[in-house]
């Protein structure tokens, strides 16, 4: 007796008859992945537990974050679009866990369809754990923008990284218009968010994270700064609005590096350092980043 490893039809799947034109398989990954299930109650509860009880301690151990500027959100009503700069995979957990609860438990994250939704398993994982929704990085995809807009209209907050990907060298990239477009379309504000220091933990291409700061000691590691909510002005198009959002994030970066008053004065004088860094030779760009010069660990001590 031979035990059939592959049960035959009708128990097993049918085989395709030769000569019949082969149909492409239904596209169920990338932007076509349906994330509705991840926003129903069971998944939301699971995600709340995951974010609050797993991600938050993890972030605290790895980055000991200092979150500032939450008072600027005191008058803000959900939903809103949170636009942050992007250095590291750690940015999403960091921003997510830094959000006040009223935003955090009803938030979706715009994630690159080609990376986070490349397979069914990966898609399910992304959708469940961080509430990711698939977004095309480069072009405005009708399906993904409709999905995001309908979610915002339905009261969901959107976390988005308008640079379209993690920073390759530590400097920022130009902001794309997606967040601004959605803000105008849904008539909701954009909250600029500046994330500092995640690159030192897990930069693009790194395999393992390096904890910085003293674990759980608030303020010794990375920093997240929330800015004042920005509303699109009458007749402003998404490109101009995106520039304004980028400037706001840059000012927050300046505020993080110096202090608020210095940042305000430089902003008023138009001398805020840009996120994208100087347009010079790569080594000078690298040199200008102070994290490259940071000493790692202590000098060895000899017995």
């Amino acid at each position: 007796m031979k035990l059939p490893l592959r049960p035959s039809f009708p128990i097993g799947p049918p085989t395709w008859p030769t000569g019949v034109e082969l149909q492409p398989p239904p596209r169920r990954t990338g932007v076509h992945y349906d994330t509705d299930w991840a926003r129903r109650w069971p998944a939301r509860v699971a995600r709340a537990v995951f974010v609050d009880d797993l991600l938050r301690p993890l972030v605290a151990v790895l980055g000991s974050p200092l979150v500032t500027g939450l008072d600027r959100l005191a008058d803000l009503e959900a939903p809103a679009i949170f636009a942050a700069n992007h250095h590291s995979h750690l940015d999403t957990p960091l921003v997510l866990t830094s959000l006040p609860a009223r935003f955090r438990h009803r938030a979706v994250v715009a994630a690159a369809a080609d990376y986070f939704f490349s397979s069914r398993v990966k898609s399910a994982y992304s959708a469940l754990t961080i509430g990711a929704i698939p977004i095309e990085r480069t072009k405005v995809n009708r399906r993904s923008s409709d999905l995001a807009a309908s979610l915002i209209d339905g009261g969901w907050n959107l976390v988005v990284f308008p640079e379209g990907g993690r920073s390759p060298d530590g400097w920022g990239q130009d902001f794309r218009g997606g967040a601004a477009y959605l803000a105008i379309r849904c008539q909701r504000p954009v909250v600029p968010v500046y994330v500092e220091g995640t690159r030192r933990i897990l930069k693009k291409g790194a395999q393992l994270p390096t904890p910085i700061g003293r674990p759980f000691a608030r303020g010794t590691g990375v920093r997240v700064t929330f800015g004042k909510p920005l509303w699109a002005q009458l007749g402003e198009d998404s490109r101009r609005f995106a520039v304004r959002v980028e400037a706001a994030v840059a000012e927050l970066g300046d505020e993080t590096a110096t202090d608020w008053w210095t940042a305000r004065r430089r902003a008023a004088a138009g001398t805020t350092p840009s996120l994208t860094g100087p347009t010079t030779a790569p080594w000078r760009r690298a040199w200008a980043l102070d994290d490259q010069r940071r000493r790692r660990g202590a000098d060895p001590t000899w017995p």
Partner: protein
Amino acid sequence: MTSPRGDAVSPSPVGRPALRTRPGLVLEVERSTPPVLFHAGEGFHLERLPVGSRVIYPAEPVTPLADPDAAIGHALANPVGDSEPLAALLRPGMSLTIAFDNQAVPLPPMRRPDNRQRVIEAVLDLAAEAGVDDVELIAAHGLHRRMTEPELRHIVGDRVYDAFAPQGRLTQHDAEDHDNLELIGRTPEGEYVEINKRAATSDLLVYVNVNLVAMDGGHKSTMTGLASYRSLRAHHNVNTMQHSRSFMDQERSELHHSAWRMGRMLGEHVKVFQIETTLNTDTFPKQFSFLQKREWEWSARDRASYLAVSKSLDRCPPRLARSIFHGIKSPQKMTSVQAGEVEAVHALTTASVYRQQLVPIDGQADILTMGLPYVGPYNVNSVMNPLLVMCVGLGYFFNLYRGKPLVRQGGVVIMSHPTPWEFNPVHHPSYIDFFEQVLPETTDPAEIEAKFEADFANDPWYIHLYRTSYAYHGVHAFYMWYWGSHALQHVDNNVIIVGGNPRAVRRMGFKPASTLRDALEMAEDVVGRNPSITHLHSPPILMADVT
């Protein structure tokens, strides 16, 4: 940068009148009236008042501004009175000083962001745009204690603190630093006008206030917050206080008349741009929300939380109870903001305060009862010592009237508070000595003033603690007593404290009673049988308009 939310997609909230929700109420107690809530320090209890007593309930919190930041921007751009918009007053190379109220307001401390943070950030935004480099911030705490770093951070926000404090550009007023005081002159009445030198010599002085009660604000802001002792003495004295009927009603307050004279003189010397904000009376967070509801409207949930809270407070050590209460951050919200010339601004502010707080009531009573809460302006993060009980009860609560006092001349005031014989030695060192050494000798305000004030005011140790530690000035304990001097005179020292430490109560010349019923019996000896009774159901704050 302009206000990010301009004439925009969102509806503009500026100028929407603060809607009044249900106004205050005077309830006559009958047999079906539920017992009435009395605050008593870190606790409260329900008391049945005799039939026919009247209870004054505060108005419900008025609807706050929908977008306070936009409202601030609007106020700065459209000042009232004889003043240009703030932006027009700012130019590169000028010196700008921003003075702001201290932690005595609001009560309890409000949730972040504080009104002052919002306003200061807006002012600094404009200053940054105008390229003003020489900016200094001064906490205008007068003779109050210096604030700790967390307290300052709470008021101005972390951003402003981190930007200014490390450079020494955020300082606290020091009324004993004689090198940094500027004598501007003397008024025809002989009042010294002497304030902080930096404020007096700046090209522009911006004062940022939170107007909790009608006494605050106006010229009193600068003339107390930034003044020296000899300047303050002009209006902080027994004579002035006894002729301020009440000091909450600036029209009939000697305190304010003096401050106004002095403020006008200051105004001729330095350009003052006043920014005042008002709050609604949404005083307690959700878990204590029953404290600001009328008893017959308590839901099952309110009753459950009343029982849970009061039972657990009975069992918990006083220290813990105190730390729980002082941890309360109030959800008060901004109801108005106005900027410009001091007097014009303050007129609007006062109107706004009255709109929230005034409750009309007809006629005076023989007996006034009130429950005193755990906090007053001078014991934020501290214990409410007996002198503060006196000041909050006979100073603040008694004076929350316009027209006539709630109690008739020669009537009785009954207050409930545990009045512990306990002092915070860091915050109130001179209070201890006042209580131990002055009060046993006399409780007459005028005699106290004549005999002891100079000694305490010039005591080098108090001055040292005031300047370097977190102590109220040596003379501040006297002001507590002066603040109640009008009430003492009016009711002829007939004050009964329910549930207080009997020794401490007697030391102040009052009578201790263990229950409200006893206190009412005792009061009958003074005012006769079947007295009329009015109960001030506060906090939340209300101001009685007595006709």
